């Protein structure tokens, strides 16, 4: 019975080449896309192969990207996306204030040299920022360090300590503290599990910090709202 229910929709999907459905996109990308109002102008910093930008453009969002790797940039431009080669640490300074409605930093914060400066720049260039990063407080990480005594490696972060591009790991709790320090307002916070599914909404911070594999934050400038 269960087998039949699964196979029937699959067959019909093969017969008609449907447009790319939501099931083809990563969970965190879908969550980010859902946070952005249609018609917005968005900059994706560290846009990789452009999967998120493609999702955004399919939803009528004007997306631009910066990517460090030449291969990534060329694949993006090959998809017709407006992507330029650049470095979050050095090139954000070239963008004027309020150039975008949203600036996205997806799974890149931990690879920047100066995460704090990058974060400040995101909220200078964009009226809002969406930041997602792997949570180093995730229970699997803690167990590997505590029990195994080795630097943690997971499905989503398989690199060894000596060849990882990730030089500034933090936990969800660490990130919340940084946001407070630089006067950033947290509009929305979501923790995702290992499969990119949101954890339950009303859980306390310690629970997210333990069971969230990554955190996704919608941020805005706190000082702006305080001004008249």
């Amino acid at each position: 019975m269960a087998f039949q229910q699964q196979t029937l929709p699959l067959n019909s999907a093969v017969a008609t080449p449907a447009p790319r459905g939501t099931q083809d996109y990563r969970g965190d990308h879908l969550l980010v896309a859902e946070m952005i109002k249609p018609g917005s102008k968005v900059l994706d910093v560290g846009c990789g192969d452009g999967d998120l930008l493609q999702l955004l453009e399919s939803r009528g969002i004007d997306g631009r990207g910066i990517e460090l790797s030449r291969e990534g940039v060329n694949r993006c431009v090959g998809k017709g996306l407006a992507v330029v080669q650049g470095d979050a640490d050095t090139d954000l300074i070239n963008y004027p204030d309020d150039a975008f409605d949203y600036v996205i930093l997806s799974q890149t914060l931990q690879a920047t040299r100066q995460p704090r400066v990058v974060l400040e720049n995101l909220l200078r260039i964009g009226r809002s920022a969406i930041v997602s990063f792997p949570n180093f407080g995730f229970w699997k990480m803690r167990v590997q360090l505590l029990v195994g005594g080795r630097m943690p490696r997971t499905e989503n972060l398989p690199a060894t300590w000596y060849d990882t591009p990730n030089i500034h790991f933090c936990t969800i709790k660490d990130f919340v503290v940084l946001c407070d320090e630089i006067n950033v307002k947290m509009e929305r916070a979501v923790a995702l599990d290992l499969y990119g599914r949101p954890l339950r909404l009303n859980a306390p911070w310690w629970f997210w910090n333990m069971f969230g594999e990554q955190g996704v934050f919608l941020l805005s400038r706190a000082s702006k709202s305080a001004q008249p």
Partner: protein
Amino acid sequence: MVNVELVKSPVVRPDERGHEADHPTSLVAAFGMDQPLRLDCGIDLAPFQIAYQTYGTLNADKSNAILVCHALTGDQHVANINPITGKPGWWQTLVGPGKALDTERYFIISSNVLGGCMGSTGPASTNPATGKIWGLDFPVITIPDMVRAQAMLIDSLGIGQLFCVVGGSMGGMQTLQWTAAYPERVFSALAVACSTRHSAQNIAFHELGRQAVMADPDWRGGRYFEEGTHPHRGLGVARMAAHITYLSDAALHRKFGRRMQDRELPTFSFDADFQVESYLRYQGSSFVERFDANSYLYLTRAMDYFDIAADHNGKLAEAFRDTQTRFCLMSFTSDWLFPTAESRDVVHALNAGGVRVSFAEIETDKGHDAFLLDVPEFLDIAGAFLNSAASVRGLPVTGA
């Protein structure tokens, strides 16, 4: 006695060269005394003509036209046999049926630049006021002048907005000038291996080339047509020097290394012992057969003067603020004439102006000339960029 071998003399007669300048083997748009071209130097040029070629078919609403701008020594013969050299068009890697600039979907226009020697008015043309070759009496022209003349050509074809303006090197300069001068007339722009201004090093190389031409006694103060001479040695040396800047150390090493030319041992002379010498001499002598020396002076000068930011209070971003044109810039890792850093400066200015821009750096050892060669990644990205622009413009798209 040491063997000495100079660059070989051309076989083309002077009257043949002059003929192509006035009566080109291509389409011609003639502008009379009532349609003068206002030049940056303050002179109104009239009458004048622009020689051009077209490929493909203009659609009913005239929305599929692409203007291809040529580089310093290029011409309008982008995708057909060149009437002077008998060789294939210079950008057949990019332009043709099924290529990135698909002649089955787009209407491609390419014109010889103002100041050129392949049929557009320039120093090799006859000055109608005197009946003599213009020579150095021709006014000094700029890249914006070339683009203004192209805009008049596009007007004469009844085309309001170009779907795309495409060019590499000096052609890329014209492309960027188009977007700065006529943003509403350019839907998309593909500018390759270029910059919004000529660097001091590039001006220096051009000065070297010009001095080589003018040092040739056969140049005769630019009056070589009347005197029946031709400064082929000077122009050949200018081309040899320039050609080195179009390549890279790695490409020269890969192609020639220290290999000898048809011999095992050095001849202890100044003969072309090395393959690289022989190659350069060939480049020099074949160039002088097809190019006018004075035209070379004028076009290099136009590139030297080029600086878009200078026309906008020194702020490049001002030149592109809020333009709706979709940009794609590309540079090549081994290009030391227009290095990636210069393209990046343009990209920063476009970003600061809120412009939609893509920028890719292509890894190759082929140097500046890579834009003319079969570099698949470059050609693929060019095609993808045009395809995405076409779908937004409502034009047919390949692979859909």
